[in-house]
Structure formats: structure tokens, C-alpha cells
């Protein structure tokens, strides 16, 4: 894709997201996106031949990408690997619960939103896995991971669990740093880092 094509795509997805925020998923039309973006109907269909369905699915994926970019930015500068995961989970929980559009649509149109989120969930799974592998390599070089650890497998495990915990915290109080510390160090990383690395000794 050329730069101008990417810019057009970005403009249309931002417009589609804005329409969903205003009208909801069911009521948003391609016409609304045309008006919001100031791009012609023909151009919208050239970029998204599948029309409304394709546009909305891509808009959900676009906002999800933006969410995980914010998450990646939030964890920069943490003390260590465990500290990074703690910071990330605390941030993600607050961000999901404070995400007005997400929370509104989860109440008004869960049956429309959830299938889209589930279809698009594969991207953050790969994204988080790829993000974590270099950090695990650093931990391994420092002799802080358990013997016979498969780094890719462990990164994939962590990504799955992070997505699970962001979606449903279950019995974990994800607003309490002490609880998240137990979650990360005693559960998520219990089979990955050495006890010394986990206790910071």
C-alpha cells in the first residue's frame, strides 16, 4: 500500500470509528462514513469493497491496534520483566474500563461487537507475542529464566493469558497493584522465571 492509500485508509477507519461512537454499530451506514470523512462513496468502496461490514471490522481492528500501541507505550521504562507485565495489566484494565466507546457498545450492542472483537483478537495475540519475545531473550541471557524454556511458547502463553485477563479479570482485583503483583509473579511467570528473578533478589 502506498502512503496516500494508507492515509486514506486511516482517515476512513477514524471516520467509521467516530460514527460507531455516535450511532452504534447497527445504525452506522456507509453514507455516514462518507459524510464524516469527506471522501466520496466510490472511494470508500474502492478502499473497502465489502462495504459496511468490512469497514466496521477494520475499524474495530484499528482501534484495537491503537489500544495495544498505547499499552506498549505505557510499559516502557519498567524496572524488570515482571514489573513490565504488572504495569501493563494495571494500565490495560483501567484503559478497558475507561474506554467509553467500548463500554457503551458492550452494553447497547454486545451481540454485534463481541463477534467482531473475537475475529480481530488474533492480531493482538501475535502482536503481544512478538512484543514479549525480545524481553524474554534478555531475561534468558541474564540467566533469569527456568531451564529448558521455549521462549516462543512462553511468549504465546503470556499473550493468551494477558488477553484473557484484559477481557475478564475474574476473581483478580486488577486495580490493586499488590494483587496484580501476585497474579504476575506467582501465576503468570511461575513457570517462566527463576524464583530469584521473581522475588527481585
Amino acid at each position, binding site marked *: 500500500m502506498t502512503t496516500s492509500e494508507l492515509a486514506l485508509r486511516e482517515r476512513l477507519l477514524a471516520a467509521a470509528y467516530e460514527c460507531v461512537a455516535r450511532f452504534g454499530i447497527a445504525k452506522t451506514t456507509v453514507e455516514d462514513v462518507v459524510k464524516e470523512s469527506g471522501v466520496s462513496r466510490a472511494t470508500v468502496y474502492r478502499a473497502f469493497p465489502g462495504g459496511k461490514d468490512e469497514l466496521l471490522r477494520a475499524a474495530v481492528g484499528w482501534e484495537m491496534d491503537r489500544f495495544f500501541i498505547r499499552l506498549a507505550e505505557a510499559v516502557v521504562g519498567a524496572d524488570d520483566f515482571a514489573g513490565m507485565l504488572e504495569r501493563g495489566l494495571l494500565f490495560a484494565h483501567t484503559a478497558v474500563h475507561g474506554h467509553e466507546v467500548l463500554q457503551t457498545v458492550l452494553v447497547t450492542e454486545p451481540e454485534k461487537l463481541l*463477534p467482531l472483537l473475537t475475529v480481530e483478537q488474533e492480531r493482538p495475540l501475535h502482536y503481544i507475542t512478538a512484543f514479549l519475545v525480545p524481553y524474554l531473550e534478555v531475561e534468558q541471557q541474564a540467566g533469569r529464566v527456568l531451564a529448558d524454556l521455549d521462549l516462543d511458547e512462553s511468549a504465546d502463553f503470556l499473550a493468551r493469558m494477558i488477553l484473557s485477563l484484559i477481557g475478564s479479570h475474574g476473581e483478580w482485583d486488577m486495580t490493586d497493584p499488590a494483587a496484580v503483583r501476585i497474579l504476575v509473579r506467582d*501465576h503468570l511467570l511461575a513457570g517462566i522465571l527463576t524464583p530469584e528473578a521473581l522475588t527481585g533478589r
Partner: protein
Amino acid sequence: MSSSAVAVEERASRPADIDARILDGAMVCLSRHGVVKTTLDDIAREAGCSRATVYRYFPNRAAVVEATVRRDIDWVTDLVTASAEHATTLEDAVTAMFVTAAKAIVTHTALQRALDLEPEVVLPGLSFEGGDRMFAEIGGRFAPVFARFVPAERAPRAAEWSARVLLAYLHPDRAPFAMTDDDAARALVRRHVIPALSPTPTASAR
């Protein structure tokens, strides 16, 4: 079957049998037509009874569907619990439960059909707040199995953690390996589940 034959059969059955037959019929319908399209007539026909009989036991179609799902969840709970009955270690118990639960879920015609074709009906019960409720229920249901291996006060958390790991790997398109495979399940349990359920937590002990 003629209507008089149905009447004779209905009289001959004890109420509990009719109740179970209605739920059996409903499950067949859910597997065949899905949740939205299954009608009370379909259920009555499949159960071999009249609409009036269905209404004697259930107030409406939604109640039949809900009772069918509840009974099924109870069955799977019993099946999974029983699979750990003879386990002597936590690793054996969790591995057996993973494989049994995974098989029950991936071969569940009605559930898989709904996940494929009617995700909007199923997903609200499995994600976000629905997921919180589901995890709380799983924690309660399987705590007794875990209490054989970990202190009772930690058993619900152990059950929830195990279920969370299993479910994170069950999506058929995304799973790196089949959790129905005993060796694959055991490797995952040994690496990521058992250490998390260990009796000497590192962070909390500090």
C-alpha cells in the same frame, strides 16, 4: 406416531422422564437448528410430546433452552470431575481434567455450531462480565477437586486459574496444539499451571 400413541406414552412416563425427554429433544434441536431458530414446536416434536406438555414443565422456550444448557454444564462438570477421581498428583488431576474438558467442548455439536454461526448468542456469556461470571462459576464447581491437592482456601483460585489456561488454548483456529492430546496437555500443565498453584508463592511470601 399417532396422537393417541403419544398420549399413551406420556401417561406411561413419570414426570421426571418427560422433563428429561424435553431437554434431550431441545439439545437435538439446538445442534440442528441453532439457538435462535429452534422453536417450541420443534422441541415438542423432537421430544415426542405436545406443546401443552412442554408448557406444563417450562414457562416458555427460553426456559427450556436455559434448562438444557444448565443440565449440559452439570454433565460436563461431572464428567470432568470424574476424570480426576483416581489421580494421585495435582499434575495428573489437572491433565485429566484438561483433556476431558477439551474433548467435551470440541466435540459439542450444539456449542460449536453456535460459536460458528451464532457467536452473538454465545459470546456475551463468555467474555467481559459474562467471562467474570463464568470464571467464578468454574472456580466454585471445580474447587472440590483442587482441594484434594491444595489448601481449601486456595482451591477456587486454583480451579479458576486452570480453567483460564485451558480456555485460552481452546480456540480451534488459534491453538498451537490440540488440548485433547494427553502429552500436549500435560506439557502445558507442567510448565504453566502447576507452578502457579504451588504452595509457596514468591511475591506474597515477601
